[in-house]
């Protein structure tokens, strides 16, 4: 899936993008506004898509001054389904993160131990510019005290869970906290990238870990 545009898992057309915009607003919007908010399609193209949705009944239109405006027809029998899909798409990345956390918990077993593992998203998915084929890039920092087989089990479990839940390959950069500190103090190129864009969603924050490692030099 394209985690930067998850609605495409359900609809690859402008109609899907239009529905996503209208699902989030109760205010009437012009076709140009819908196109701008959706970040896709020209205003004329979006108006055509909206016209198709008006024909379908899922969108209503009203003339305001010189402009046609559009709102969701929340009384349409399909609208609850449309809303569910849109909101699920918006939560897609959070749900992938939840899948990762659950997988880690299952592999580690002990919640106190699991809480010490830092997991961060980086790369194109973290930046929001990923494509359909993009890897899901994860940085996982394990306490140095963890056994090698525990770490490998956890990595394998997360990798499988991410691929199963997204269809995308999962690229995991795993390090012990000792190794991570070495990478920071040696000025490894990846560290700058993590500092800039990594988003920690479990355990110790990676940016704080970087600063702590630098501060201890």
């Amino acid at each position, binding site marked *: 899936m394209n985690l930067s545009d998850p609605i495409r898992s359900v609809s690859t057309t402008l109609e899907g993008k239009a529905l996503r915009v209208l699902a989030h607003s109760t205010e009437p919007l012009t076709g140009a506004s819908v196109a701008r908010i959706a970040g896709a399609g020209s205003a004329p193209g979006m108006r055509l898509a909206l016209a198709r949705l008006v024909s379908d009944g899922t969108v209503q239109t009203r003339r305001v001054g010189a402009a046609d405006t559009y709102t969701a027809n929340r009384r349409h029998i399909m609208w609850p389904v449309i809303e569910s899909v849109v909101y699920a798409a*918006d939560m897609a990345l959070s749900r992938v993160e939840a899948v990762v956390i659950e997988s880690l918990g299952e592999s580690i077993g002990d919640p106190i131990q699991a809480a010490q593992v830092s997991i961060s998203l980086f790369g194109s998915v973290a930046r929001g510019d990923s494509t359909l084929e993009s890897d899901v890039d994860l940085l996982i920092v394990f306490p140095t005290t963890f056994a090698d087989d525990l770490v490998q089990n956890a990595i394998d479990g997360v990798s499988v869970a991410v691929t199963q839940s997204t269809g995308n390959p999962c690229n995991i950069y795993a390090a012990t906290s000792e190794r991570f500190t070495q990478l920071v103090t040696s000025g490894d190129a990846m560290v700058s990238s993590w500092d800039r864009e990594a988003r920690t969603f479990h355990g110790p924050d990676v940016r704080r870990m970087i600063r702590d490692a630098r501060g201890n030099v």
Partner: protein
Amino acid sequence: MARIVDVNPALVRQRAGAASEFLQVAEERLEFIRAESGESAEAQVAASNAIAAGISAADAICGKALGRRANDGDHRGAVELLDSVKPGGSKLALRLSKLLSDKSQLQYGGYCSAAVARSLAREARKLVEAMNEFGIRS
């Protein structure tokens, strides 16, 4: 009438990032409050940052959902705009309204209590967490 300005995706991310940072500062300062009774500088700073977090989160949500936000200083406009988003715009607007009602008093008045600071931080956290429901990443 509310002054509404258009918002592009870069600004949404910027406001979302600011919201997360403000909230983090607010919650960190809460840890330094020495006494639950009485007022303190730590509580005031926590409260001020909580308010900033809520405003920034509201801007990010409105920016993502509606492509626009209320102009700085237009509190009523911000609440009205947030009320129009879905899901949960009404509840989010209520939380923002609670934050904004204390804003002026904190900026120009004295210290606030720990209880007020914690309450504001809770409201702010709900607004910041709500950004996820709109697919907003900071």
